[in-house]
């Protein structure tokens, strides 16, 4: 029960950060907090089952996915910052409809 409340709190804190931070790198960091909270929650559900190793294998897949997401996201941020000097979410409007 306590781990459920903890992960819900961590996810909500990360969500608040994604919605309020203006720096793109900070938004990505807050998204990592959300992703970490969700993974800990999934692993908590898997940990008590007899096939916990399969849950842990899923966790390894999630860690790899999150690492790929962070690498591509940060590369885009660095490329934009190098070419235009901007790194705040309100400045990045090229793909707005």
């Amino acid at each position, binding site marked *: 029960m306590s781990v459920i409340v903890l992960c819900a709190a961590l996810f909500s804190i990360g969500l608040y950060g994604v919605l*309020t931070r*203006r720096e793109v790198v900070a938004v990505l960091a807050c998204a990592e907090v959300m992703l970490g909270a969700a993974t800990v929650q999934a*692993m908590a559900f898997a*940990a008590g089952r007899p096939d916990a190793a*399969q849950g842990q294998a899923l966790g*390894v897949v999630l860690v*790899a996915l999150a690492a790929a997401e962070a*690498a591509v996201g940060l590369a885009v941020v660095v490329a934009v910052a190098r070419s235009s000097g901007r790194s705040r979410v309100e400045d990045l409007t090229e793909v707005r409809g």
Partner: protein
Amino acid sequence: MSLVAFAVPAALALIGAVATVFARDVMRMALGLGAFLLGVAGLYLWEGMSFLAAAQVFVYVGGVLVLVLFALDVVRRDPSGRPGTGSRHDLTAAVAAVGTFLLLANGLRDVPVGAPVGSGADRVATALLGPFVWQFEAVGLLLLVALAAVVAVMARGARR
């Protein structure tokens, strides 16, 4: 002992998450993210998932955090304004966050969370190379594509 093994990483993760979201200085934000990631690794240990805890430390604390610090070094030269919070939508975001917390905490309340049984690296390897082999291969392909994408994005940024 079990309570301490849960409470210490849980407190570290909470403090780190709060620092990541609310720190005005970006270096403190990065430190908070590091504390959060270490706390998450500790929670994996508490759940009996030692292999995942080690992977978390290697990939996140050793890889992603260094990437974040590198990105901050490039981005901090941005003269358009100091980083930090200060959105007009803070109240809406707070309502959304509290609502999400209540929804998650109530919705998942009845899902059983058993005592951790523990699972070593050998059983994880058996799972990854057995029933999850296609997912394992797909993630390997995804990492390769991500690597190529990062190189392409950076090369394009350098040409401009």
